[in-house]
């Protein structure tokens, strides 16, 4: 046992944390748009699995991870569309629809894997891209600037999402639809259309998060590959109070904690790992409890929109 946390170890924890944050960030930013429009999609986990499989299979067949990404985006859009039909057009209870979508996505990804791959198969996934010069900066260079493209994408999406949400007309529509859909409706903003768009966007980002697991991390596919990450991503949206920067903070905190606990275990410091596994969930509940969720939540969250009903 080395006893001390040397600088090296800290660099490892940080770099790992950044890598681990990526899928949470992608899925949570997507879910943020969905919830901002007034829908919550509990099916993120299922979409991630489908995205993970699609990305993996396309990469396996076509040989290039870039096509894998493209195809998983398309599949994610499709899954988002299903959720939209069920929860927006048919106005179904969103929590339950999400659970349905989760089961469907889990089942279908497993089925397709068995039918078209069957067995542990590796692929050549995304390679890290060291950003010239920047990656040579001592200590923070390797922490920040030696990752694969999806990692950079996820982090770039944070300011981009902020820009879209607060500075564009579409972002204005999303915020209006999520807070007072009947107002948006009377001004000719189609509530249905905005919610469809957000669910599709959210589906694409969730699928991308899944694809990151297969072609950016594991370089293979296995049943239940997401292992609950989708649900954490949803919780992070609440934690981050529906803002991209809050979500960034939450994702980093969460994944740094995870990376830290792995290192603690590896270094043999006596630490019950059951607690380590529970910890993220516990932290999330506590975070939800102290953030008084409702105050910040989009006012119409979870309420299907029907023209002409009283509130």
């Amino acid at each position, binding site marked *: 046992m080395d006893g001390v946390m040397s600088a090296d170890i800290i660099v490892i924890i940080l770099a790992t944390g950044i890598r681990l944050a990526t899928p949470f960030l992608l899925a949570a930013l997507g879910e943020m748009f969905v919830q901002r429009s007034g829908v*919550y999609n*509990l099916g993120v986990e*299922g979409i991630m699995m489908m995205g993970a499989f699609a990305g993996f299979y396309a990469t396996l067949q076509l040989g290039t991870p870039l096509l894998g990404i493209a195809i998983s985006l398309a599949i994610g859009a499709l899954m988002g569309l*299903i959720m*939209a*039909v*069920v929860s*927006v*057009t*048919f*106005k*179904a*209870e969103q*929590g*339950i*629809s999400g*659970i*349905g*979508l*989760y*089961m*469907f*996505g*889990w*089942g*279908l*990804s*497993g*089925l397709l*894997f*068995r*039918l078209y791959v069957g067995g542990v198969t590796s692929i050549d996934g995304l390679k890290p891209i060291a950003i010239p010069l920047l990656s040579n900066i001592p200590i923070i260079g390797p922490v920040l600037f030696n990752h694969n493209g999806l990692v950079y994408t996820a982090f770039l999406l944070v300011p981009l999402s902020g820009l879209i949400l607060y500075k564009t007309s579409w972002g204005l529509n999303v915020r209006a639809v999520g807070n007072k859909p009947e107002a948006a409706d009377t001004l000719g903003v189609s509530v*249905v*259309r905005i919610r*469809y768009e957000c669910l599709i966007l959210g589906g694409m980002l969730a699928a991308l998060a899944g694809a990151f697991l297969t072609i950016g991390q594991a370089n293979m596919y296995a*049943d239940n590959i997401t292992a*609950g990450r989708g*649900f954490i991503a*949803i*919780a992070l949206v*609440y934690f981050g109070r529906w803002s991209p920067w809050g979500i960034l903070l939450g994702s980093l905190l969460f994944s740094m904690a995870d990376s830290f606990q792995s290192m603690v275990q590896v270094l043999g410091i006596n630490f019950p790992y*059951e607690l380590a*596994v*529970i910890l993220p*969930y*516990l932290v*999330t*509940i506590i975070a*939800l*409890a*102290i953030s*008084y*969720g*409702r*105050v910040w939540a989009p006012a119409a969250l979870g309420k299907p929109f029907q*023209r002409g009903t009283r509130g």
Partner: protein
Amino acid sequence: MSSNYNGVFKQIMVLISALVGALLVGALFLLLAKSDPVKAYGVMFSGPFSDKFGITETLVRAVPLLLVGLGIVISFRSGIINIGAEGQILAGAIGATAVATSLPDLPAVMLLPLVFLAGATCGGLWGGIAGWLKARLSVNEILSTVMLNQIALQIYLFLIRGPLIDPKEVSYGTGVPQTALIPEHIWLSKLIPGTRIHSGLIFALLLAVLVYVFLWKTSSGYRMRAVGAGPEAARYAGIRVEWYLVLAMALAGGMAGLAGVVEVAGVHHRSLEGLSAGYGFSGIVAALFGRLHPLGTIPASVLFGALLVGADMMQRAVNIPAAMIMVIQGLVVLFVVSSDYFLQNPDFGARIKAKLFGEKADGEGGK
């Protein structure tokens, strides 16, 4: 809930259509898996009903589904959504097992009620946490229950491989994570020898009637429904909304906990891995299928139990990957929740027609 014959008939028709729709889409995936949908569904529907084995297996599933479903009915009617039954089942199971194994010499008349009580209490406490978090700190209960499921699972696994592990597993060195068997005199009696169906079925049916009476015939039930349907008005009328939210979740958790007890006392006779078996989620579907009515949940649980058994049989009969079962379950959930819309919008069919023939209907709809 409109109770006239016409309304019920219509609801049943809509549900059946939803089921058929789900299966039709499922058939596409069966074709993809290169198996014959007719044969597959043939097995799926005849299997659970064709012999004693199928029927009893269906009922074995229906018992925990009904218990969980009753809890879901209570919670939904009280305006709180319980996705946490998976964890509550485990809490109930482990509580029951702990009591049963630590007091093996108590006579059944004392031990069995104690065991049921312990299970209901543990499940209820676990559910109550989410209720309390919602009532006091406005934590979204859907999220908290999903999280609590994970936490319960980890604690449960820790207990069955640590403190509560069967001492024999340790002495033989196999270390299989499971508790000792509960004393045999409190095993629920089998209703039909040579099958797994046990007296928990009768217990669950009685409880369903009890829940119905509670919700619609008592003042406390009235209060809970009032809290669910109009929390502001309930508070205005002097009803302690927070308390009833916690109570609703505690009762829902208690029901799920009882499902755990029944699984332990009736089926497994100990706590082991995989005990909750997804009943926590399927129970929600069963409750929805039963239109969130305690008595409707009875046939719904049997139907959904048959679906689980049938899908399982189908998988073996036509040899398709097990993942197919989950695909079908997911589709059933999606179709059933969507079907509500058709009950509330009777003119929907007409609108679709209008759309198909190119007329714009009502200025609504995606694109």
